């Protein structure tokens, strides 16, 4: 750690436009303090509409049961679990940015981490809906908790991956929320100290917990962030690993494979970064934050997308090879007939997945494409469609033809209430995101100020390497001076 660490002049500045500390505060607080734009209202109302559709769909599910969905004895898992895995995966990018990149000391994370963490929390909230409402008799949902009960007490099965999921997802949500909110405290205090309206004084006064910016508090805050990052890093890897165990520990051909944990984690980060791109490209434009979420940020995230997309591609090929090499006729059938065969009922979904996830991101090997906003936006949508189909392929194509051909279910299409439920989670996600972008600073103000003097436009050029080194030496001396 140093007062001002030297950053190579070859690296592009992460904050453009010769900002001072005060400019940073003004720029990031402006959207919060201004009245919401018409565009915001339009987006918010559409989101609320989708949320309403979701509420009706869940109502139908509660009243008439999961029979409202087109699941049957062969395809017991369909859209519902596909959506669950998809949403959980999206959350992973936020934690990667906020935690893993903090440990790796990647300066560029500061521009995007706040929004990405918010995305994580909302995505996990959406993911959680699916297992909850899939329970059918949701009023008995508390049965998953190990509490002393009058049924024995009969305890939950701690050997089951589905119970691991309950613990993993709830821990992930709690820790992400704490990490996000503890990071927000100083910024909420900034808003509190600037507030002019009565309600905002009250709201930010309440929300900022009385933060003052005391040096001792900052010292503890830094320690807290670092340890939370250290905890979140294995946590985020564990979450999608455990999600993949839901499949990998079973004996279904197409699921029963040891490659699943790393393959799921890479896919999760891949789809999550695509969603971060989708959200931030809109956010930076609508809120006028192009100087903080720069082309450099978009470029770097596209590099992550091509990297993780290629890892996912290698995983697809490995999985395919292993199913043939295993010499298990059932494994090979699942791949050859249910997936590779374009004429099979779901063959198209396998090739759609391959095209969206493996081939199309390769475009990002070109710097020009990485720095093209339209291409990036289009790709971010494409990747998320591809990743949704990945989960659909894994789930449906593995089970629609099981060991007994007489019970093969030739076609599975979702009902309107399955679609409505999925749309409803989009509503929930975007309603939360719109509220977040209105009431909270979408960029971490304090963290931007912290990197401003080493990554800011004007400062970066202003310091010579020798000057920076003298700061470093000073800092080093200080740290050993007790």
């Amino acid at each position, binding site marked *: 750690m140093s007062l001002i660490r030297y950053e190579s002049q070859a690296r592009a500045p992460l904050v453009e436009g010769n900002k001072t500390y*005060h400019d940073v*505060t003004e720029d990031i607080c402006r959207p919060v303090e201004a009245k919401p734009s018409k565009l915001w209202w339009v987006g918010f109302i559409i989101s609320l509409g989708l949320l309403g559709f979701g509420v009706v769909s869940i109502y139908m599910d509660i009243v008439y049961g999961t029979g409202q969905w087109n699941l049957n004895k062969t395809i017991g898992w369909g859209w519902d679990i596909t959506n669950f895995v998809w949403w959980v995966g999206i959350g992973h990018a936020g934690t990667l940015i906020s935690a893993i990149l903090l440990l790796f000391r990647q300066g560029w994370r500061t521009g995007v981490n706040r929004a990405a963490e918010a995305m994580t929390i909302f995505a996990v909230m959406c993911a959680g809906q699916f297992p909850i409402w899939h329970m059918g008799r949701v009023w008995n949902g508390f049965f998953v908790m190990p509490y002393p009960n009058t049924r024995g007490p009969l305890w939950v099965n701690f050997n089951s991956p589905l119970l691991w999921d309950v613990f993993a997802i709830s821990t992930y949500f709690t820790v992400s929320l704490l*990490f996000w909110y503890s990071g927000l405290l100083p910024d909420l205090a900034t808003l509190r100290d600037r507030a002019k309206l009565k309600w905002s004084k009250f709201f930010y006064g309440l929300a900022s917990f*009385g933060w003052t910016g*005391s040096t001792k508090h900052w010292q*503890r*805050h830094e320690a*807290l962030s670092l340890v*939370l990052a250290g905890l979140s890093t294995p946590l985020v890897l564990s979450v999608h690993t455990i999600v993949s165990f839901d499949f990998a520990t079973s004996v279904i051909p197409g699921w029963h494979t040891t490659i699943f944990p790393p393959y799921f984690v890479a896919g999760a980060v891949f789809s999550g970064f695509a969603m971060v791109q989708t959200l931030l490209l809109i956010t930076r434009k609508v809120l006028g934050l192009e100087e903080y979420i720069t082309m450099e940020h978009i470029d770097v995230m596209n590099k992550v997308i091509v990297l993780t997309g290629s890892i996912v591609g290698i995983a697809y090929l490995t999985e395919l090879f292993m199913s043939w090499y295993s010499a298990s006729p059932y494994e090979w059938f699942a791949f050859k007939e249910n997936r590779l065969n374009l004429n099979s009922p779901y063959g198209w979904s396998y090739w759609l997945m391959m095209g969206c996830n493996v081939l199309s991101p390769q475009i990002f090997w070109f710097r020009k494409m990485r720095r093209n906003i339209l291409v990036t936006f289009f790709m971010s949508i494409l990747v998320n469609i591809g990743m949704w189909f990945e989960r659909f392929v894994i789930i449906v194509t593995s089970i629609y033809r099981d060991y007994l051909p007489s019970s093969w279910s030739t076609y599975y299409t979702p009902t309107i209430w399955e679609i409505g439920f999925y749309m409803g989670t989009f509503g929930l996600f975007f309603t939360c995101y719109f509220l977040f972008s209105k009431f909270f600073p979408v960029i971490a103000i304090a963290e931007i100020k912290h990197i401003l003097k080493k990554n800011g436009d004007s400062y970066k050029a202003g310091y010579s390497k020798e000057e920076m080194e003298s700061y470093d030496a*000073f800092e080093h001396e200080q740290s050993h001076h007790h």
Partner: protein
Amino acid sequence: MNVKKFVVGNFYEEAVLFPAVTKVRRAGYKIHDVYTPFPIHGLDKVMGLKDTDLHIAGFIYGITGTATAVGFITWMLAYDWPINFGGKPYFSLPAWIPIMFELTVLFAAVGMVLTFCWLCQLAPFVKKDHFNLRSTDDTFTMAIECTDKTNEAEAIAFLQSVGAQDVEIQHREADWWIGRYDRETVRFGKKVPQI
């Protein structure tokens, strides 16, 4: 009501603040606190604050979580109501590793955040004073506590001489919300670092 007096000065450059802190401490003034809009690495060291032990607390919470998971699951599945899952042993530790890990993380994270809030006395509805509203924006605000022996005019002049701006006297109720719960400073050594 116990009212305390503070000499408050503002800084706008880290390069001015650091030597100023050193000089103020060397002159024998008692720095109540320095409020900054973002973490400034090394400032705690210059102010002579001890390192925080928050990570140790985190470690203890973490192993408490692990122990809770192992203890409870063992008791439930191996003693209280053993169930035969596919002929596997009642005490099947490898299958419990995921939940042991999750509870470790959960306990450590929740415990640390609560401890952090408790140590810093942060909670909803808590109101504290940091002398200058701009210190959450772009200003580094230093508050020096006045004792009976402090000559105020001298302190103001001294603070101005080390680069502080808008130096003034402020009165605050010495209640817990401005009180220092951070009395853990180390004694100021002979060797004074220079920037």
